């Protein structure tokens, strides 16, 4: 399979007022691959992730320079409809955040706000999404129960199903398993492997083992700069940069 660039950034700079949070970031993220972003706290990896669905727009005083594109389209073009963008780029957060609604309504929510009213279509999409998120068998008999009644791991998979329902092209995951136990974490990781065939995944994780297990490519950020990016198997066996080696082998600081 030839690698096709899905999201691309060139000389990307990002500022929180005077703070230069991302400096001259240039790399590509490929379709149907999982790209992991790793680095110590405050290195800019989450900021970078939030640039992709323009979540940072919500913060006052931010400024972006350089280019960030999806399928060649400039994501920061003022003409770009952010609502449409966020349908194309789904996001899953660190802590599961289901709506205080039924399991069914949680997944159907995105469809309804996007104007889908056909009950049959919604039913089908809810089932498909829950199956994609490997949650269907556990909840199919209690779809009317509150999403908050589920366990943490199930809630996170519900959030993934909710993100999947609107059929995004890219799925951003910000430490999706850091609040989960090892079994739930393993399920999420298995899920990432499954979802890659349909989506492009970009995941921020503090767990280097998790990055190693789930991603095809890994990007190492440090102090707002991209230090090294490459195939995960290479980055974790013979990184080219000394800082990368020091970070992943725990020799940092």
């Amino acid at each position, binding site marked *: 399979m030839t690698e096709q660039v899905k999201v691309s950034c060139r000389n990307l700079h990002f500022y929180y007022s005077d703070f230069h949070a991302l400096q001259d970031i240039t790399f590509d993220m490929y379709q149907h691959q999982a790209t992991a972003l790793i680095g110590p706290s405050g290195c800019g990896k989450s900021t970078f992730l939030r640039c992709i669905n323009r979540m940072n727009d919500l913060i006052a005083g931010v400024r972006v320079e350089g280019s960030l594109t999806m399928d060649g389209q400039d994501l920061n073009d003022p003409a770009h409809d952010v609502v449409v963008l966020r349908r194309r780029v789904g996001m899953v957060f660190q802590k599961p955040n289901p709506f205080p609604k039924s399991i069914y309504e949680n997944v159907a929510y995105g469809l309804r706000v996007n104007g889908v009213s056909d009950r049959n279509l919604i039913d089908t999409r809810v089932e498909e999404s829950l199956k994609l998120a490997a949650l269907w068998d556990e909840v199919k008999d209690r779809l009317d129960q509150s999403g908050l009644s589920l366990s943490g791991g199930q809630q996170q998979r519900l959030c993934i199903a909710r993100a999947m329902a609107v059929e995004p092209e890219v799925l951003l995951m910000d430490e999706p398993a850091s609040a989960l136990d090892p079994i739930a974490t393993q399920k999420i990781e298995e899920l990432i492997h499954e979802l890659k065939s349909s989506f492009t995944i970009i995941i921020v994780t503090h767990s*280097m*083992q998790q990055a190693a297990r789930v991603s095809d490519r890994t990007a190492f950020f440090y102090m707002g700069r991209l230090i090294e990016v490459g195939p995960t198997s290479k980055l*974790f*066996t*013979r990184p080219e940069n000394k800082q990368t*080696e020091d970070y992943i*082998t*725990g*020799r*940092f600081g």
Partner: protein
Amino acid sequence: MYTHLHEEIEALKLKVLKMAALTEEAVGKAVRSYVKKDLYLAEEVQDGDVQVNRLDVEIDELALRLLALEQPVAGDLRFILGCMRISVDLERVADEAVNIAERSIMLSSRPPLPFQDDVAEMGGKAMAMLQHAIQAFTSGNVEAALQVCSLDNEVDVLNHKNMRKVIEYMIHETPAIERSVHTIILIRRLERIGDLATNIAESVVFISEGVNIKHKRYFDEHQ
């Protein structure tokens, strides 16, 4: 920052170095036991093998534990894998030394054949390869490791030359056939030590560079 893993890796390195020192000593004694017909040295080699075997098991256990519990990556991962490979090769070298010692014991009770100098020369080269490989491991010196690989040809040439020499001798001295066969086996063991020293040097390159140069020549020629 110095972590628990790095302390353990130091301990692993010390074990490999200890094993290397014992193995090197065994090869030296084995060759001298043949050249000098010294039964005492040969028996020391036989008795000392258990220590090398014990270290081999210890290195295996420690490396397995580090892989399972510490999930090492990059240079640490390569170092642990490299140590596992090197300990397997060292254990084999020590076995070759025991084999040579056994031949020495057998041959010492019989009239000598005129190959002492040839065996001493070849033993010296194989020994030098082993020493240089171990030094390359100690210092992580890739250049030195690559030089060991290039020395292997010299040992191979000596192996071939000595084999021919012993076979020629056998043809004319039929009463010496049994002793000659043992001598051939002994020469062959020295050639293997050269091969195993090359393996160790290749592991040193793997640890430092992350590239596998094993069988490279074969793959290059058959691609």
